[in-house]
């Protein structure tokens, strides 16, 4: 018996629960040199903003213990260029395409999402209200339940396919923001974005990031991400996408057991571009060994003390 890896996120069925995380796979072109993108459950693009952005000056990444800090600052080609130059490539890929959207005002989000609504190849959008590296928009919205609800509700009016709200862990109670996103009309929640952190060069006495601080990602944050998914799973009914430090099929199992329907692989793509393919293979093997017919049998099945 070959275990069934299909999962459903709102109305969209994924081939498998393994997605790539925004900002860690560009617009798919480079990753396609590692494996056919059809092997992914879904690809999530870098955050797209209305205008192109250069992001912050270098250095904008720095290594950390079992992870990294980044303050890329939403560098991206901008909406127009994305549609003209990147979508044609994505159109040829036999996988679910999620476009991650960011902005510095609700108007920005709405404008970008409205335009993307007219691009049929965009299967879903992921609303990034959790970027810790920009002054406006991003985390400012995601730490405020009212703003969160409002942003998602506005986007909801202009985008007809499934909407993922991407949550930040930099809050006292993530389930409050999760419920706000649900109230705003999100179909799916993804979590977590990076944790605010910094690093100082003890030689130069300067921050190691020109943005002075950045977002922590990688295996270092996995326990925090798992606890966040666990918490949100108990307080909303939306399907969840687990993100944070995932590097192996066993990590995927952990996230699904606490309630994730799918997961995103971010930083560990840098360590191994073939990672997603290996994870899909190992996940199938895991299910086979345990005689589980479908990967969905894992979702939320942790047995708490």
């Amino acid at each position: 018996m070959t275990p069934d890896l299909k999962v459903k996120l709102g109305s969209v069925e994924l081939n498998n629960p393994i997605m790539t995380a925004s900002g860690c796979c560009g617009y798919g072109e480079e990753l396609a040199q590692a494996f056919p993108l059809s092997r992914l459950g879904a690809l999530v693009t870098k955050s797209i903003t209305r205008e192109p952005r250069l992001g912050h000056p270098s250095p904008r990444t720095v290594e950390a213990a079992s992870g990294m800090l980044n303050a890329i600052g939403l560098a991206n080609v901008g909406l127009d260029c994305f549609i003209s130059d990147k979508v044609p490539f994505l159109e040829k890929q036999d996988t679910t395409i999620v476009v991650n959207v960011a902005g510095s005002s609700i108007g920005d989000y709405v404008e970008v999402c409205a335009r993307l609504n007219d691009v049929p190849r965009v299967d879903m959008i992921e609303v990034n209200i959790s970027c810790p590296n920009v002054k406006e928009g991003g985390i400012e919205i995601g730490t405020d339940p009212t703003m969160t609800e409002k942003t998602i509700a506005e986007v909801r009016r202009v985008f007809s396919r499934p909407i993922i709200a991407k949550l930040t862990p930099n809050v006292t109670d993530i389930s409050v923001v999760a419920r706000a996103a649900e109230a705003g009309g999100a179909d799916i929640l993804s979590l977590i974005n990076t944790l605010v952190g910094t690093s100082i060069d003890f030689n130069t006495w300067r921050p190691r990031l020109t943005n002075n601080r950045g977002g922590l990602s990688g295996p270092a944050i996995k326990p925090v991400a798992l606890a966040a998914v666990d918490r949100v799973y108990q307080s909303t009914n939306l399907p969840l996408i687990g993100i944070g430090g995932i590097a192996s099929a066993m990590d995927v199992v952990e996230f699904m057991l606490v309630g994730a329907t799918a997961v995103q692989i971010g930083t560990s793509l840098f360590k191994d571009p073939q990672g997603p393919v290996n994870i899909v293979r190992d996940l199938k093997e895991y299910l086979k060994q345990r005689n589980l017919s479908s990967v969905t049998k894992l979702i939320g099945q942790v047995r708490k003390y």
Partner: protein
Amino acid sequence: MSKLKIERVAVRNLRHLSRDYYSMCLGPWPKGCRSKPGQFVHVGLPESDIFFRRALSIAWVDPDRDESHFIFKVFGRGIRLLSRCNKGDEVELLGPLGVPFKMPKKNETCLLIGGGVGFPPLYFLAYRMIEKGRDPRTIEFFYGGRTSEEIVERTRLRKLGVKFRPVTDDGSFGEQGLVTEAVTRYLDSTPPRNPRIYSCGPAPMLRATDELARRYDIPGQVSLEAPMPCGFGVCLGCVVPLRAGGNARVCTEGPVFEIGEVLL
């Protein structure tokens, strides 16, 4: 670009050269032998507590023995750990990566300007040019270091037959001063025919080279360094600003850029 796949390759040899400098040979690694001067590998140590791979230029390859050679200098913990490998240990390799140097025109005089660990890609370039039939005497190899100890692999370089022009800050070997000062003296005293510059080294040296090249209106290329989380173009962590506006990724659009292209 070859298929993006991490490979495990064995350390065949690791030798201390001087001070913080080491040479390392990895193999068998068929892909490496197809690499071109200016390209690099991204190398990591499995199961270590160093999170990212490190970039190393390819210094030369030996297709008969299926092996690639590297020269490195220990700055921080990552490369230090590499320097402690034993023969037979396996490293994780991604590569060869990046855009190689453009080969010069037949009638050009090549000024190779290297500082410190900028040496390996330039050595590879000289080696390959000569292999392809260029007269070694049309290659002026300026090689700067702080002291004599930083001018490594001299015998190997001499064997190529290039015009070897060592320069040290303290004058302990070759000319005294900065390598770009030596280049300026050379350009002023014996202006070469159709010069073309290839340069790699620390940031201040590259800035000086860039200035010099534009002052003397000499075309050419520089190879840059940047911290590289991914090495294959997806993280946008390694960007440098372009003179024409916008950014370029050192790992993918570089590490080799045209002189004047990048705001150094």
